[in-house]
């Protein structure tokens, strides 16, 4: 059915298949590049809007290095005053990294948190996205309450049978607070 194989036609054939496929991919990539970027941006903006108080204008993106690791964050302001920081941080959970967006207001209180990505066990650790667990971090003041699960002597109510996930969530929030402190320290140095 197929043509006889020879070195020349095998090479030519594979070459042609690869050229056509990559040309096709390049075309599709060009078309979808913008919508993909838009979808990612929309997702980030949605996450920011959840974790910080009301703001005006566009969030300003920036990154800071804390302890050798880079953390992207967004500053939002209202009436020219910085209203809060949306900080992305992550910690290892049970099934991979738990990535969070943590909003910290200018008075060093956590406004809200949201999960950007996680791959915890469905029905157990994955419950960290549900309000029953996540809402306890609303208005959390790290100066008064310790960001550790109760088992470890902190104030975080862990998810039943998912201590590792709860611990990761608490660690990620704590990291975000540390990043916040670093941002403030850097701002003060600049002035």
């Amino acid at each position, binding site marked *: 059915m197929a043509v006889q194989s020879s070195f020349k036609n095998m090479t030519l054939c594979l070459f042609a298949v690869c050229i056509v496929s990559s040309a096709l991919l390049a075309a599709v990539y060009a078309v979808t590049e913008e919508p*993909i970027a838009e979808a990612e941006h929309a997702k980030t903006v949605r996450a920011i809007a959840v974790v910080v108080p009301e703001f005006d204008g566009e969030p300003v993106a920036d990154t800071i290095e804390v302890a050798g690791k880079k953390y992207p964050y967004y500053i939002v302001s209202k009436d020219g005053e910085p209203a809060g920081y949306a900080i992305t941080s992550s910690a290892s959970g049970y099934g991979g990294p738990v990535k969070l967006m943590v909003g910290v207001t200018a008075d060093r209180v956590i406004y809200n948190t949201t999960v950007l990505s996680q791959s915890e066990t469905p029905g157990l650790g994955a419950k960290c996205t549900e309000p029953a667990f996540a809402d306890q971090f609303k208005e959390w003041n790290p100066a008064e309450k310790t960001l550790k699960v109760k088992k470890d002597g902190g104030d975080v109510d862990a998810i039943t049978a998912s201590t590792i996930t709860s611990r990761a969530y608490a660690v990620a929030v704590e990291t975000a607070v540390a990043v916040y402190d670093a941002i403030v320290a850097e701002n003060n140095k600049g002035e």
Partner: protein
Amino acid sequence: MGKFQLITKGLVKENPTFVLLLGMCPTLATTTSAINGMSMGLATLFVLVLSNMAISATAPYIPDKVRIPAYIVIIAAFVTILQLVMQAFTPDIYETLGLFIPLIVVNCIVLGRAEAFANKNSVVDSACDGLGIGLGFTLALTILGLVREILGSGSAFGFKFISGDGILVFVLAPGAFMALAYLIVLFKKVTAKKGE
């Protein structure tokens, strides 16, 4: 074989999941809910139809010794197109299925149909075959996802009808094996009665 039979054969007689038992990896992994199962099925359907058509059209010109690499490149191209399109227009579904979209490249159903059917049949017949097998796969994954969702989370297609959790194990991997096994038993029983 008529076009219609080509399509229905994939649904029942040669159902990739319940009869041929192909593509078990995405079958077990992505059917945590009916919607997830259906999305995975439709994604595979899309790749199957297009790759079947492309392979059937190019097969006469591809030397026998390099046909497998050529098929894999063609399939991979369609999978990547699908991946980009999903990322752009249905980011939520893309995120849930995640790794299993690029893994369609090595799904044995797709390469299996290319080898067993598309490279010796006409473009239209191959499209019908891809459609049939793809629909069979989608149907199987949707049913499996639905069963697991009903038992595991007490909801169907995202609509919750009990409060609280279901039988958690059905959302996890062991539940996938159990649900699939019982569905295969049921499928065999039903088709055996009808057939012979």
